[in-house]
């Protein structure tokens, strides 16, 4: 990366921006260490009891495992469907590839609440509400556009000549794909994985429509909890989620390079 001098005005603007983005955390972090029984800022006493309360709460722990399994399945499926789709769009260029690519990103343009309502109307008669399969399908609608987008860009940025070179050296098309194309897409694959995982793990609106009393994702469980009780446990969970997100982002940065992965 090239280093350029940054003007003081830009530094101040960037600082204000960061402050704006981090402001919620500045409130949530102290509250999560509150010793009070209700949310108040600033807390009157300090403790870590609400972190302990999370692990003692079976509803929350169940929801956590469901969210984790859900994010895992959704990510694997997003890659499994997104990669062939991206390959077809970019490399095979069927007629109307452009229109198809736009169609695939259409769900991103719709407000999630509209999507959620539509899914509810379609899934309810099929008995998919409150089922794991229903949740997976709902989340895929949001994660697939990201997957196809990021993977298409990664694929389109690869120099075709490198794959041609492999072919000239005697590699069959499938060998070229696995030995040359896929390894060269590494940063795209890492960022797609991270993106799909985080989007699925954090998804609230669609999940609210899809979950039932027996099946709750973590964000939905948190929502319900906050709805009924105003204790600081939700703040403690939020902090843990921020830590998890940060961990994923750090892994991406270390393995693929953050700016190269997300900015391009």
């Amino acid at each position, binding site marked *: 990366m090239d280093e350029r001098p940054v003007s003081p005005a830009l530094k101040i603007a960037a600082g204000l921006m960061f402050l704006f983005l981090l402001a919620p955390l500045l409130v949530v972090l102290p509250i999560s260490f509150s010793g009070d029984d209700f949310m108040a800022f600033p807390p009157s006493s300090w403790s870590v009891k609400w972190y302990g309360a999370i692990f003692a709460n079976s509803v929350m722990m169940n929801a956590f495992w469901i969210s984790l399994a859900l994010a895992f399945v959704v990510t694997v499926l997003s890659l499994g469907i997104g990669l062939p789709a991206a390959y077809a769009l970019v490399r095979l260029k069927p007629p109307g590839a452009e229109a198809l690519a736009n169609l695939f990103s259409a769900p991103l343009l719709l407000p999630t609440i509209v999507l959620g309502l539509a899914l509810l109307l379609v899934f309810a008669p099929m008995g998919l509400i409150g089922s794991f399969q229903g949740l997976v399908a709902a989340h895929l609608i949001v994660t697939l556009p990201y997957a196809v987008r990021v993977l298409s860009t990664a694929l389109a940025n690869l120099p075709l000549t*490198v794959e*041609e*070179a492999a072919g000239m*050296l005697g590699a069959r098309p499938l060998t070229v794909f696995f030995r*040359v194309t896929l390894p060269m897409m590494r940063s795209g694959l890492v960022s797609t994985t991270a993106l799909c995982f985080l989007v699925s793990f954090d998804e609230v609106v669609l999940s609210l429509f899809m979950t039932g009393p027996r099946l709750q994702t973590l964000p939905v469980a948190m929502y319900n909890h906050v709805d009924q009780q105003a204790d600081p446990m939700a703040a403690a969970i939020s902090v843990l989620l921020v830590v998890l997100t940060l961990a994923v982002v750090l892994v991406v940065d270390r393995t693929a390079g953050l700016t190269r992965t997300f900015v391009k």
Partner: protein
Amino acid sequence: MIHAEPTEMTRLAQGQGFLSLRGLTRRYDHFTAVDDLNLDVAKGELVAFLGPSGCGKTTSLRMIAGLVPASSGHIVVDGRDLTGVAPYKRDMGLVFQSYALFPHMDIARNVAFGLEMRKVPKAEAAQRVKEAIAMVRLTGREHHRPAQLSGGQQQRVALARALVVRPSILLLDEPLSNLDAKLRDEMRTEIRDIQKRLGITAIFVTHDQMEALTICDKVVVMNHGRLEQVGTPHEIYEHPKTAFVAGFVGRINRLPGRASGGVAQVAGITVSAPGFDGPVDVMVRPHRMILSTGPVPADAGLHQLSGTVTRATFAGDILEYEVEAAGTLLKTEASTRGGEALLAPGTPVTLSWRPQDTFVYPAS
């Protein structure tokens, strides 16, 4: 008893050449990139495809490689018709302008890739990789990634990678165009040395006439998808068949004239133009024109034109002049071997040249 190897017989029947192109054509929706290309390349020859960008030279190479399907025509290698055969079954080596190395593999694995695809036993493959890397003088860099090497080194890796599998034909697509001038000269000689040592048949696509003339056995000049002329570098330079070849290979002066009865009148002089009638272009290479300030003996058998220097440039080893003669600006040059001084603009001069250095073409 008459006996010949079957491949030999087929080859002769196909009509000469280790590599034969027969009516090779590539049409796109709105234009024809390569139009009816016929060519025979003998075993061990280095042949240049030379022409300006868009002339069809790269498309021709990619059709030979199998990366672009031919619209019609045939590609025959050693008696075997390869038209329609997938690239990975063609057993050809291709070196790209952009090197096209595998960025995620080190140098040794890049070079070994083709051997791995051919399932060459490990020990033998390791030995051949070692030799190939030594051949391009990169021993010690085996475990570097391509990005850690300079452009010239990367292109040498690409060359080693293409040659290690001992392909039937080596294809080079503007392999030197991304290198700086000094490196280009070195690599040019290096490619020629390696090609000769291995005795491999090779096609070298280039837009640089120097590359084509200096290292190739044969030059194929192309323009607008058509073959203009095939010949040795000497033939191409000294006997250009078309005005395009004369202008593209080397520098040229053009004088408009008119021909009738086997001679052409141009700028007040008469040149031999057998078989021409009507408007013609008479062409002479600048460095074949001798510039003199004194009188030129009339019995020297040279064509002569009087004119005035309009521009004089000192270029170190030569002096470059622009001379106005008979209403046309002509370029010429003089050696500085004897320490000659630059003539001032306005100096009256005589340009003279040998009749055999005069080319005549129908006016374009």
